[in-house]
């Protein structure tokens, strides 16, 4: 074998090894994953996860479009790999099955803001607010999220999250004030209401709940409040 042949063989062979080990084998291992619908004893339980339809699909498009992923991850690591669970970001680590319907999955690699894997879970929704905040809606419900999107610093005074005011419109109040109108200062006779994008995004966020039990992973009891 001359030098050129061995050079080309080496380059092509090393690429083949790389794509085989890091893409093809993982796909063979994970590609056939199905939702879980039985528990350990084979009893029929709730199907999890379910396909992303309706508001989830529409909200995911906004999440992708605005690049939420560059500051917020959606993956909870286990106890050996950091303090995500202790920090209250989830009751169990997230596994491949959690993401089978996500195209693409929003795993994220940077946390300039908190992890959002379970931001729609009952625990997060009902959690008391940051005690130092100037403005305290009772719960992290849709109203909280809309206000937070419109101006994060109304809720968390030193937040470095951008405002997404362009996902809202200011309009003249015709007749009665809309029930969707945000509770923010605005000139008389006007109101701030969310555009469909904002409503879809918040709707999606409130479905984010990766705490559903799965056979392949152990869950811990939700002991602490998220921080």
């Amino acid at each position, binding site marked *: 074998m001359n*030098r050129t042949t061995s*050079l*080309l063989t*080496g*380059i092509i062979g*090393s*690429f083949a*090894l*790389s*794509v085989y*080990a*890091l*893409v093809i084998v*993982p*796909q063979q*291992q994970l*590609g056939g*994953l199905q939702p879980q619908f039985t528990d350990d004893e084979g009893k029929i339980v709730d199907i999890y996860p379910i396909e992303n339809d309706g508001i989830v699909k529409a909200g*995911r*498009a906004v999440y*992708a*479009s*605005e*690049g939420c*992923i*560059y500051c917020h991850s959606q*993956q909870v*690591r*286990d106890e050996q*790999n950091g*303090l995500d669970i202790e*920090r209250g970001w989830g009751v169990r*680590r*997230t596994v*491949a099955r959690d*993401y*089978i*319907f*996500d*195209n*693409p*999955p*929003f*795993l*994220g*690699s*940077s*946390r*300039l803001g*908190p992890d959002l894997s379970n931001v729609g879970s009952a625990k997060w929704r009902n959690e008391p607010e*940051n005690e130092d905040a100037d403005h305290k809606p009772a719960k992290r419900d849709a109203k909280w999220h809309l206000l937070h999107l419109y101006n*994060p*610093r109304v809720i968390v005074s*030193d*937040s*470095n*999250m*951008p*405002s997404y005011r362009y996902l809202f419109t200011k309009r003249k109040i015709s007749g009665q004030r809309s029930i969707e109108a945000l509770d923010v200062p605005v000139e008389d006779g006007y109101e701030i209401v969310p555009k469909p994008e904002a409503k879809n995004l918040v709707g999606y966020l409130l479905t984010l709940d990766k705490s559903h039990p799965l056979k392949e992973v152990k869950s811990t009891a939700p002991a602490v409040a998220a*921080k």
Partner: protein
Amino acid sequence: MTAAATAPTPTTTAARSVDYPAAERAAIDASTRGPVLFFFSNAMLWLALATVLGLIASIQLHSPTFLADIPWLTYGRIWPAYTNVLSFGWASLSGMGVALWLLARLCRVEVKLPGVLITGGVFWQVGLTYGIISILAGKSTGLEWLEIPTGSAALMLVGYGLVALWAIMLFGFRSQSPAYISVWYLIAALLWFPWTFATAHAAHLLPGVSGVVQSLAAAWAAQNFQNVWLTAIALATAYYLIPKVINRPIHSYNLASIGFWTFILFSGLTGATRLSGGPIPAWVVTLSISASILLLIHIVTVSVNLILTMRGNYHMVYHSPTIRFTFFGAVAFMLASVIGLFSSLRSVDKVLHFTQFQNAQMHLVTYAFYSMVIFGAIYYILPRLVGCEWLSSSMISLHFWGAAYGGGMMIAILLFSGISTGLSLADPEASFIQVMEVSNVYQIGRTIAWSMVALGHLIFGLHFLLMLLRIGQPGGEPTLFAPIGVEEKH
């Protein structure tokens, strides 16, 4: 002043492969002029855009209301636009230019039908422009590290195919054997890139591949982009320029050969460290960590080889702009590789994952290593294409000041802020919001550092433009920071 600083002589190993008459070399250089100038000048425009986008993103991290009301300029779109412009605009196009010039010289063939290369460059950039507009318009794929929509990526791949085919043909028709080590790295780079890029897009597109495998494929492609494509081009360049300018053969050819084979075998297996601790099978991450550790062989061989080649000639860093930039890049390579190795270990990764440390690593490879080597190469190549030398050594000096000190400071800030944030968050009692408030201080430093980088790029851009207009010193003698006198030779 002696001309030995850049004058090629037939005695060096590097020169051995280009051991042919000056007239023939000039003819080969001339045949690359059109396409290489085209790639360089377009790369410069993308660098200017990347500098601006990077500055906006940096400001937004400490002043979140900055340009926040313009959807096209929101941080979540500016950031991916910045990384893609930096990678596929500046880095890839300048790399194609350098690779073409090096291959023509080292294979001793003239470039025929340069129009094909320019057409390839046009396709690449039409695709890229459309891709960047899509990201800013909120129509990216939504998949981190693979944001450019598939249609744009397809156009880029067509353009790339033309460029790579022409470059590999230079290798096929070479009249110089055996091939120099730089040629090995360049051929590896040219053959690897399109397949990783295409495979990752296919993984995103194919119906059977859903969920985390898409992320894994994107992480793998992004890692290969940095650790194979960019690294191979920059090492090829350093292996050519350093021996050439200091006029001495590469220290050990065997060492270079061992380095190449460990590089090609292990680099492509390191990608899964980007998802360390994530919802992917643990064995994939373990494999990538092992490959990162084994890459140590490559790091050591390349470092030892370049350091021993430089031995006794460190004063050239003081005189030659090409050596100052290239050697800075080589040192950054060593640093980036060692940091990459340690941060891949699980015990370190669990603290640093998700912090600015990752960002620091990206800039160490893409900027402090790759871009600095390419700046060095442009300082070397451009005079040979336009026929005059760089006008002002002070302008080169200022560019180095901005790029090395500004870039170095930014990376140091990112590394430090990553470590400090990671350690603070290792305390479960620490509130996430409060830790993030502390890290805001670092972001201000980062904006200051990036402004220095921007100033350096502005001066470099101006100097580059003057060269295109043939405004410079008369050709023949390279523009040096300081003349090489007898008293300088330690």
